[in-house]
């Protein structure tokens, strides 16, 4: 049962293609597993179709059609080689969302007791801060706030913070003004997260870290 979904504005921005790539990846991972959001996204894309239909046409150059006709029989560009993805030793039955297929996935790195992270690098947006996080049973993540929005999709297990409990398939959308200390469920938690502007940890000074948008 999915209880936490992306906000209406976020889904609209996803349909419009205006979300940063990292956030778009997390939303795509959520939508893949959420029938309600798939239907809502289909409606919002239909809205995009309606907007396209209603635009005042802008004529193309006179030779445009001939130019395209000339290219119809050219071979389509080859898809990129599959990216390097570390074997993460995921729990049986857990598969990474299809949205991650083009992403490079690093091995688990230790960040603190019971907490590991794996860097997710998007070849098409290498500066986006995306990661898989694995938090051991009942562990607490260090308290932090964010330089920007933090989107988190739960893939396995779950966590609780001041905004509620998040289980498999749930997506959390945290603003830069949320300071929280998520605690994993007894069975632990694996999630996909996109961070804007990095984490702000208390001992590094909340206010001194760089802030984007």
């Amino acid at each position, binding site marked *: 049962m999915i209880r936490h979904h992306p906000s209406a504005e976020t889904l609209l921005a996803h349909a419009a293609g205006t979300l940063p790539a990292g956030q778009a990846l997390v939303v795509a991972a959520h939508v893949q597993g959420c029938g309600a959001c798939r239907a809502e996204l*289909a409606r919002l894309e239909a809205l995009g179709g309606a907007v*396209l239909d209603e635009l*005042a*046409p*802008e004529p193309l150059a006179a030779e445009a*059609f001939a130019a395209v006709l000339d290219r119809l029989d050219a071979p389509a560009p080859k898809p*990129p080689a599959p990216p390097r993805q570390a074997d993460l030793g995921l729990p049986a039955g857990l598969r990474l969302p299809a949205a991650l297929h083009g992403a490079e996935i690093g091995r688990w790195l230790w960040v603190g007791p019971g907490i590991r992270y794996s860097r997710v690098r998007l070849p098409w947006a290498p500066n986006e801060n995306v990661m898989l996080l694995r938090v051991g049973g009942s562990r607490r993540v260090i308290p932090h706030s964010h330089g920007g929005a933090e989107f988190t999709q739960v893939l396995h297990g779950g966590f609780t913070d001041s905004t509620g409990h998040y289980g498999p398939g749930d997506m959390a959308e945290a603003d830069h003004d949320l300071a929280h200390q998520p605690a994993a469920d007894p069975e632990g938690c694996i999630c996909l997260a996109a961070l804007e502007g990095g984490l702000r940890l208390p001992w590094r000074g909340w206010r001194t870290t760089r802030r984007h948008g």
Partner: protein
Amino acid sequence: MLIRRVATARDRQAFAALFKYFAPRVKAYLRRAGLEPGEAEEVAQEVLLSLWRKAESFDPARAAPATWVFAIARNARIDRARRNHGLPGAPEPEEAEDELAPSAETLTLTAEREARVRGALGQLAPEQQKIVKLSFFSDTPHAAIASELNLPLGTVKSRIRLALAKLRAALEEVR
């Protein structure tokens, strides 16, 4: 069904008709999204070329033609911005494997959904229609909406939320 004819028969007449209708609208969309005229022209041609190549993957049970073309144009716009920074495009989104084959029922539902969405958009107040439309055009939609409608930036998010709520209410009404 023109896209079907392109997919199954590689029908160039059908493609010409699609080009005539969609290419100028795609170009208009790209111009509104901030591309320079020359770049919008190039990308519009690429979008129509993609339409030819991907016609087989068009599924009328999932989207109306304009909705499908919109998605291709949107992705082409994003990929162009990435290429301008020397980056590769994102891979094609993959279909979930457990998706069921379209039935006649879902086909009707798609047509209905598209009609309902258009009806609902038409029912919104002009300012709300404008907010929804502007949301589709810009990489910084909130800032663009704020400057075009002369609203404080902080108000824009709540206006978008309001417009979407109205849209949903209108969708429920016509159901």
